[in-house]
């Protein structure tokens, strides 16, 4: 077990290095002089030179890479061009807004979709399976930004039950804050149900085909025991991995929902930075989200032996 954990943690180190180098190179790939792009056409040569020096652009590429990695390891992601704030604190502050939304949505979706997917697989080609799978495919096909707009239109404007625009931190005013979070979380929750349910159904079907399941049923065990005691652990592995991927992907794409509900989260920070050509912030957001993605996948893999101890052997 200990060896498995060490090996898996060691495996993620090259990935993190690759992520770092990719983010570093991505920003350097922008055609033209970044300093000129940031300051605009009217900038005078002296301030251009000053900015280049501040960004370290006057050094060679490998030197820049080493300095940049050193700063990143110390938690220094640079300074925002447009506001002058520290990118690290900016990213962390926005992350505390986005993270609860994404986490709640994926948690609730998993709690609903995993059992539903297993039941659909158990009842393959019956009416309940058809209803569950069609609902999942439909939910999967509705883009979150449209579902969000429909919620705003119906629950916000038409019925007036929920606040439409703005964001209040639940830490300051928990009741008001929660009201603002209901629609974004529900939007993501419904979409992810579709993704997770289909995966849970497919991996359960794979397991139900195996001989030991037939054997368990032939022994006369009840459906419930076969499904939850014999099938669940083996079928949950692939779904568990998918839930990790969904969590990371959602964090990368959360900008869309944050835009619909005007939430000042991490995704919105990245999109605004792209508009403003605020390269340190773009770089910081990319690096931070990719880091979380790698860490979530690592954590998911480390928990995997709980369901399937075989992976620690290989």
């Amino acid at each position, binding site marked *: 077990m200990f060896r498995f954990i060490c090996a898996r943690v060691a495996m993620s180190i090259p990935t993190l290095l690759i992520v770092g180098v990719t983010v570093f190179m*991505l920003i350097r790939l922008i055609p033209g002089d970044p300093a000129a792009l940031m300051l605009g056409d009217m900038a005078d040569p002296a301030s251009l030179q000053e900015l280049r020096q501040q960004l370290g652009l006057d050094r060679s590429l490998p030197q820049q890479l080493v300095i940049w990695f050193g700063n990143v390891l110390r938690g220094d992601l640079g300074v925002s061009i447009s506001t002058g704030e520290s990118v690290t604190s900016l990213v962390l502050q926005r992350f505390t807004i986005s993270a609860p939304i994404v986490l709640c949505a994926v948690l609730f979706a998993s709690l609903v979709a995993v059992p539903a997917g297993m039941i659909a697989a158990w009842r393959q*080609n019956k009416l309940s399976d058809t209803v569950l799978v069609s609902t999942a495919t439909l939910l999967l096909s509705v883009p979150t930004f449209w579902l969000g707009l429909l919620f705003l*239109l119906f629950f916000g404007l038409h019925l007036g039950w929920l606040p439409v625009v703005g964001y209040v931190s639940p830490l300051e005013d928990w009741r008001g804050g929660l009201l603002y979070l209901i629609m974004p979380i529900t939007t993501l929750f419904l979409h992810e149900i579709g993704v997770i349910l289909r995966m849970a159904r497919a991996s359960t079907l794979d397991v139900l085909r195996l001989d030991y399941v037939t054997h368990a049923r032939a022994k006369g065990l009840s459906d419930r025991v076969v499904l939850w005691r014999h099938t669940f652990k083996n079928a949950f592995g692939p779904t568990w991995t998918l839930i990790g991927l969904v969590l990371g992907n959602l964090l*990368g794409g959360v900008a869309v929902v944050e835009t619909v509900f005007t939430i000042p989260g991490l995704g919105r920070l990245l999109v605004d930075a792209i*508009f403003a050509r605020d390269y340190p912030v*773009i770089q910081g957001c990319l690096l931070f989200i990719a880091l979380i*993605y790698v860490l979530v996948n690592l954590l998911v893999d480390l928990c995997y032996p709980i369901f399937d101890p075989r992976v620690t052997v290989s």
Partner: protein
Amino acid sequence: MKFNANTNLLVGSLLCGTILVAALLGAFWTPFDPMTPDFAHRLHAPDTTYWLGTDEFGRDTFSRILYGATTSVGISFMTVLIAMVAGTMLGLIAGYMRGWVDRLMMCFTDALLAFPGMLLALGLLAVVGANKYGIVVALGIAYLPSVLRLVRGTVLPLREREFVHASRIMGNSEMFILFRHILPNCFGPMMVLATSMFGWVLLAESSLSFLGLGVPPPAPTWGNMLAGSRPFMMQAGWLGIFPGLCISMTLLGINLLGDALQDKLDPYSKGK
């Protein structure tokens, strides 16, 4: 009730076919000009003249949806084509040549796959610039690794098969073997991937346009029409409903089609 591959195939093809016809029609003809403002008919509710109403500039929503279909489907098609062609070429080379070429390409795909898809697209857009061509390039690169991986994985076992050895012994060139014997065997899995990828790209394109990072106004895409509808949702609900309905129907069609293709290729998934 049986809800099998054939039902999926039928409904999926119908939905996708409708959208394709709309996209082709939008390229040549729309009932009204999708871009010229007509301030006499601002925010006109749907009726017999304006089937789906008009927007805040008096432009006909139906015409804009048709024209938007051309843009959205066109961009998705271009992107999938680029990712498929480039990914297949590189995947064939990596899987067939092995050695350092293979290792280099795997390193490259690892780097790209270490990012969530949408995040990578956003990062690449920041580099290539947020416009129509930027989207095609950014999404093309973002989805290229999955094609490369798939093709490489299909080629690896194929290159050891007897018919490949036989062809080489017959004196055929490596190029001939690659394109005549190996490539056709990759088409099945490639079709399934291309179908789902079309859906992912269409969704990503709509999302980026919705964020304002895609095709700039006044040219309509379904994504930027939805973004533009937000200030007028109270007076003109139809502006926010129809473009979203189009995106959802297209994605539903593609998902059903993808499921049907997968079922046809997987012998286990046919009903017991």
